[in-house]
């Protein structure tokens, strides 16, 4: 009997856990390799990949959230794939094709639910983080012969999710306290073509960026009955917008002191907003149209990357005096940035160089590079404990 088990373990080493590591996961993360449908599990303390995982489908647009124990990554792919990856063993635990075309997702406050935002079929689906079984299916408002695409999905306190409807200009608040009876509150007429959304770190304010007009839509989740209000209205002051070759992303919340920072749509500018009055208080001219405007965790610096054809640089802005302190020639196809949990380093993916560059944020010098095949998103495990991610 014993030899039979031993033979089985030799045949399937994964069963024996031979490939798994015994370690903490707090300094781990994932680098998406968009062209090959694979990812790397990386160790941020040692600047090295510990696993390569393939078979994740179409990752041309991908994002990742983490289980609350930071062991599992949930990867949302463009092909509607939702894949649960074990970081300690470097393997796929489960993979489902939950839709035809998806954009991203979020994990619930108690970590039991993972929600996916879909373009096709337009709507949101909610799954158990345990076995990826379907818990709720929330189709979006019908639009033409389909349903509206959904974007900007985040989690909010109280087992809630918030997302925007791209085609029909709505924000929906989905409450999943009782998973068998999802409750949806709809806010309509919030503005034309919301393209992404974010939530403040305290989980109070949800903001949707608008592509179809200059402005943002704001929902106060402490007082949802007051409805959605428009902020930064007409920030372009009627100026002609430039063509947009890549949609900006509102990921996380670039905040420093009482000011928040956003990418301007169709402009070579970062917008500065006062958080008390929600008024525009500054516009910082930059190298191109910003895609990500990200604050270092201490809020002292902002790191900005840009859309095609200016996606070859990263600019660093002093959040106090709003001056550009450094322009880095990272290389063509600079797609994403991720800070280490306390912000001493930033990891930057450079698609056309097939590398991830690691910078010291204090002096903005290159510390290390890691090879990666057409890298795009970089996601570290500390996202597990941040509302909205």
């Amino acid at each position, binding site marked *: 009997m014993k030899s039979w088990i031993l033979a089985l373990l030799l045949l399937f080493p994964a069963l024996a856990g031979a490939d798994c590591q015994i370690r903490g996961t707090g300094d781990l993360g994932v680098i998406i390799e968009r*062209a090959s449908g694979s990812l790397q599990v990386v160790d941020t303390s040692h600047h090295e990949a510990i696993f390569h995982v393939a078979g994740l489908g179409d990752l*041309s*647009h991908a994002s990742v959230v983490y289980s609350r124990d930071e062991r599992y990554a949930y990867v949302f792919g463009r092909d509607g794939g939702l894949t649960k990856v074990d970081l300690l063993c470097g393997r796929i635990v489960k993979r489902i094709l939950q839709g035809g*075309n998806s954009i991203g997702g979020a994990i619930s406050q108690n970590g039991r639910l993972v929600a996916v935002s879909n*373009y096709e079929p337009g709507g949101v689906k909610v799954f158990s983080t345990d076995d990826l079984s379907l818990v709720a299916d929330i189709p979006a408002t019908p639009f033409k012969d389909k349903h509206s695409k959904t974007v900007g999905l985040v989690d909010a306190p109280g087992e809630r999710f918030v997302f925007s409807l791209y085609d029909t200009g709505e924000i929906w608040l989905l409450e999943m306290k009782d998973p068998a009876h999802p409750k949806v509150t709809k806010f309509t007429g919030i503005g034309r073509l919301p393209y992404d959304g974010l939530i403040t770190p305290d989980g109070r304010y949800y903001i949707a960026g608008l*592509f179809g007009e200059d402005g943002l839509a704001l929902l106060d989740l402490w007082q949802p009955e007051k409805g959605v209000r428009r902020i930064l209205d007409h920030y372009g002051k009627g100026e002609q917008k430039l063509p*947009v*070759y*890549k*949609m900006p992303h509102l990921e996380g919340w670039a905040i420093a002191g009482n000011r928040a920072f956003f990418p301007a749509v169709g402009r070579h500018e970062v917008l500065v907003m006062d958080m008390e009055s929600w008024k525009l208080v500054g516009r910082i001219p930059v190298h191109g149209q910003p895609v990500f405007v990200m604050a270092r965790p201490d809020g002292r610096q902002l790191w900005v990357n840009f859309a095609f054809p200016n996606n070859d640089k990263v600019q660093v802005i002093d959040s106090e005096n709003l001056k550009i302190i450094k322009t880095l020639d990272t290389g063509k196809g600079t797609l994403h940035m991720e800070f280490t949990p306390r912000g001493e380093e930033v990891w930057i993916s450079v698609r056309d160089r097939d590398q991830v560059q690691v910078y010291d944020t204090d002096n903005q010098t290159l510390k290390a590079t890691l090879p990666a095949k057409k890298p795009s998103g970089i996601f570290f495990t500390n996202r597990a404990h941040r509302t909205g991610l």
Partner: protein
Amino acid sequence: MASIRLILLSFLVLLTGPTLASAGEPTPARQAELLYLLRHDCGSCHGMRLAGGLGPALTPEQLRPYTSEQLGATIMHGRPGTPMPPWRHFLTQDEALWLARRLKQGLGR
């Protein structure tokens, strides 16, 4: 031997070059650049596998109702009222037409 081949090859290129140019066929190097642009930059909205995203899929089936000339014009001038931008600063009319034809033929995944 290798140098003879090279000379022959250059001669062939010289002969066929003008014909190709008049047919609007980009050089192989430029074709590779255009396809890279298509996958990675058009792919931001249309998906790297062209299966669609915020923008529609660019599969032969999806594009059947449109002529290559119409698609070429859309690439060059964009679609006002939608996020589709004009790409005319980055490629020529002939290159846009070549891309449109390739898209209609299908590029695989």
